[in-house]
Every structure is written in C-alpha cells, then in structure tokens.
C-alpha cells in the first residue's frame, strides 16, 4: 500500500472523500447536499483524469491505476443516464465510485508508461472504453442483485430483480462490443482473432455467464429471482477475475500482462 503525495494523489483522495460524504448524505436523506457533493467529487475526478491524460500524453486507459481512475470518472455521467431511463441508483453509484478510487489511490503505482507498439491502435480507446463502462454497469447490476437477495422476503425484491435485469440489458451490449473489438484488434495486432490467452478466456467466461443469465431468465422469468441475482453477482465476480486476477497473478501468463 502506497500513499501518493502528488497533486494527482491529493485530487484522488479528495474525490474519494467527497464520494463517501455524498454517499453518507444520501443515506441520511440529505439529497440536495448529496447531489452537490457528488457533482463536486465528479469534477475532482474529471480534473484528475484530464491531468493524467495531459501528463502521459495518451488517453489514460493503459494500466490499472488509469483503469480504476477512468471507471470512477464514468460513474457520474452514468448516474445521469440511469436517472433518465428510470434506473436511478445514485447512492450506490456514489459508494461504487469511492470504492473504485481506493485501488487508484492506495494500491497501484502511478508511474507514467509509454504505449507499447501493440497498444498504438485506433481500437485502443473504443475497446477499453466500452469494457470499462460495461464493468461499471455490471457492478451496479450486482449491487441491485445483492439488494434483491437482502430484501428477498419483501415485495420490493421483485422491483430490484427487474432493475437488475434492465441494468444488465444496458451493460451487456457494451460487454459484447468490448469482446468483439478486442478480437478484431487481436487479429490486427497479433494475427489471430482468438489467441486462447487467459484474459480472453476469462472475458469470454464473463460474457457467457450473462448469456446464461439471459437464457435462465427467459426460461423462468421472475419465478426464480434469487438464482437470477446470484448469476448477476457471479458475472461481476468473473469480471473482477478478468480485470484483476488475470493481470496481476503469475498463474495466468499471457499477452495482456503489460496492463499492470
């Protein structure tokens, strides 16, 4: 664990604190204050993102520090979008953003890195961007699924189940695009659209588990809400393995190990 005594680090810690305060205000039902702090936290994260972009001279999507920073930055606009489509989970979003900044602030190094040849592609930005957005949306879905399990005895649980389904429906096309763009990029850079790399296989497993979710829900609808919710949580677990374990563990040597 490292503490970053830099402008970038201080911005991250301030944003993290602001997200957490916004979350506390929201659960204390001080909605207006929560909204203002949430906006301030987003602006701080946006400043950090822009600073990083300027500093490394490429979109900060390359390593784990940049990935977690970018995901935290995506949450506020996503909250606004979700509010428009009646999937408002703002207080959960505030907490997710605070949690996402913890690895960026304390775990991963912020050493600027130049893009290796394979990453210098027009597909770098769309491939990573859609995946990060999909991951954040699926994290929201997993929070909703957990609420469904927690409130399983109450009538509100079916509402959570429905919201989980709609959130996964929002994220699944992005997850698909991420997988397909990655495959296309693999063909351009390495000569094969599928290289059986551990990262690719875990990404496929993550995609397939949501496919299982859709088929299961098609078969049983809302009759088995607990299994639906467990599949949504399992989906996020697979995503976490794809994002973290595969890149950081020596168990999975492969072509994606530069992204640490």
């Amino acid at each position: 664990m490292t503490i970053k005594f830099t402008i970038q680090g201080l911005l991250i810690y301030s944003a993290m604190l602001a997200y957490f305060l916004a979350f506390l205000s929201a659960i204390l039902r001080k909605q207006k204050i929560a909204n203002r702090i949430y906006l301030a936290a987003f602006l701080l994260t946006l400043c950090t993102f822009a600073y990083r972009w300027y500093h490394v001279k490429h979109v900060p999507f390359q390593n784990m520090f940049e990935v977690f920073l970018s995901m935290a930055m995506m949450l506020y606009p996503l909250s606004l979008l979700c509010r428009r489509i009646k999937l408002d989970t703002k207080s959960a979003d505030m907490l997710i953003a605070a949690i996402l900044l913890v690895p960026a602030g304390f775990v991963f190094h912020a050493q600027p890195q130049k893009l290796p040849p394979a990453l210098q592609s027009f597909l770098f930005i769309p491939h990573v961007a859609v995946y990060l957005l999909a991951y954040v949306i699926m994290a929201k879905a997993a929070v909703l699924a957990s609420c469904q399990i927690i409130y399983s005895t109450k009538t509100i649980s079916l509402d959570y189940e429905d919201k989980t389904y709609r959130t996964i429906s929002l994220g699944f096309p992005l997850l698909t695009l991420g997988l397909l763009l990655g495959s296309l990029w693999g063909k351009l850079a390495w000569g094969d659209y599928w290289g059986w790399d551990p990262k690719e296989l875990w990404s496929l497993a993550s995609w397939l588990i949501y496919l299982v979710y859709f088929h299961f829900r098609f078969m049983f609808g809302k009759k088995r809400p607990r299994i639906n919710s467990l599949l949504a949580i399992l989906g996020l677990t697979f995503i976490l393995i794809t994002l973290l374990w595969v890149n950081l563990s020596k168990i999975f040597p492969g072509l994606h190990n530069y992204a640490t």
Partner: protein
Amino acid sequence: MWLSLLAIILFTALSILGAFHGPQKAKQLFNSIPLTVYFFILVALLTAGFFTFKSLRKKPALLMIHAASFLILAGAMYGSQKGHQLAEKLFNIKKVPQGYMAIFEGKSENKILADDLQHVLAELPFDIKLDDFRLEFYEPEKSSTPLLKIETPTGDYFQLPAEPGRQISLGPDIGILKVLHAFNNFKINIEQGQKIATDKPDDPPNPTLHVELTAPDGKSYTRYVFENFPGFGESPDDLKLTYTSQRPGQIRDFLSDITVIENQKQILKKTIEVNHPLYYAGYHFYQHSYDPENQAYTILSVTSDSGLYAVFAGYLLLALGIIHRCWFRNIIKNIKNKNPKSEADQQ
C-alpha cells in the same frame, strides 16, 4: 432450451479450465476431438433452435444473434487446422492455417515455416522481399538519470543512479558500492610516470564510471565501468556492472519495408508494422519478431483468411442483434407507450 443452457454452462466451464492451462494447452483443448464434437452439437442445437422456437425466426434481434453464433462457430471451425485439412481433402484448397517467414534484408523469400523456423510448411506462389527493417524509439526522457546496474553472482539485481556520492548496500556478503566519479569521455594521461584519468570533451565519447566497493571486512578497492566496453577492465569481484549514461528510449514500433514480387514483377510495396499487417492472396502477414542484435532480418507471422469473413460477419450480426434486443427494443417500447398517452392528451 435446457440443452442450450447446459451447453452454454459447459462452454463457460471449459473457458475457465482453458484459462488455467495457458494459451498453448487451451488451444489444444479446444481443438481436441471431444470439443470438436461439442462444437458440432452446439451448431446442431442452434440449427434445431431455428425450427423449434418460433420466436427465433420471428424476432429479428433473436434471429440475428443466433444466426451470428452459427456463423462464428462455422467460420472458426473452417479456419482451424482440421478445417484446413478438410478443405484440402474435399475441395483441394491447399492453404496453411498459420506459419512464419524469416527474411533477411535485401533477400526474397516464399517459404512458410513452422514454429521452429526450420521445417517448411508450404511455399507461396509469390516472393516477399525485405527492403529494410528498422526500429523506432520514443525520445528518451529528458529527466532520466544515468544508471548503474549491478548483478551479483547469486543473480540479484540492483540499480543505482550513476551520480558521484551515490552508494548502495549489496547485502552483508558483498558490501557497499559507491560511485566516485562519472566521466563523459574517459581517457588516461600519463603525467610524471603516474596514470591520471581525465575527461577529453573533443574526442568521441567514452562514458565511464569510477566506483568503489567496500567489502564487509572494511577492505575497499576501485574499478572503472565503461559504457561502450561492458566487462572491460580489472575486476577483483564477481559483480557484473553495466553503466548506461543515458536511458535509451522505449521501442515505439517495429517496421519491415517489403515488396511483393510475383512472376518476377513487383506487385506492391508496403511497410508492415504492429497493427498494420499486409493482406495478399488470402494470407495476412504480421510483424512478429526480428534480429535483436543487428536488425538484419525480420520474422513475419502468416495466417490464412479461411473462415475469417464468416466470423467477422457473425461479429457484426451479433453486435447488431444484441444492441437491438437490449437497447432499441426498450426504446421502441417506450415510444409506443408514450404515443397513446400523448394522443389521449390531445383529444
């Protein structure tokens, strides 16, 4: 439906199993005979699904998604090693699924080689000539400091900014290494019978470090570390010291300038680089490796395009189908729900 669900669960489990086995073994697993049978069953299930479930035929999004899965699986099977063998037997299409070409600068080559770069897999009906191979580097960081890298006999690595006064402990058995002086252009002058090290700025540069090692027993000695002549000079210890006066820039790109020659005619010229392969006569040619010492040759990987366009057409259909099913269906539903209300308001 249960069968489809079980097939997807099995595919998920196999993907995880493959991930634990590494790319080589995973490829072997997914190309094995039991899994070939499994993929045929998956294709059969998809085909049966079109006849069994009306919704798959009537709902355009579902039709696209399932037709896409069919296309991707069929394309991937056709593009595999066994698919190529089958195409050769049935249609006499002789293509190598994957291989390599090693080409020296100024030479032409048409042989596709196996992984060992020895065994010839096939010969192409045209030649590829390597006009030039080059590396491009990022500019070195202005702030980067000179470095002294130390490798101990036990294989431990250390590095130290090569600035006078800097020192590092190499452990209780070796002692402390200290940088005494850094020369930009090291020369030895003999003055009054004594060897004196000096800097001569006008001659070609000879960056050198003067370092001192103090052993645990307190005895110390000094030695010179030459950047241009690593390992040169007296060294009473077994330490391997490397001096880099300026950190080299990181490699930005690998580039092979090539010419395609067919029937002794120059067909095209192209620079193959990472993310920019050459496509010619049903094969893609990629920048794969190179001669790290003299950059005298390049190694291109060669892949056949069999089944590729079916797979990519499947990708397009899959993306469109899923976007339609998950996003546009709800938007259309919302618009339909809003319209009657607005019409009622108008009345």
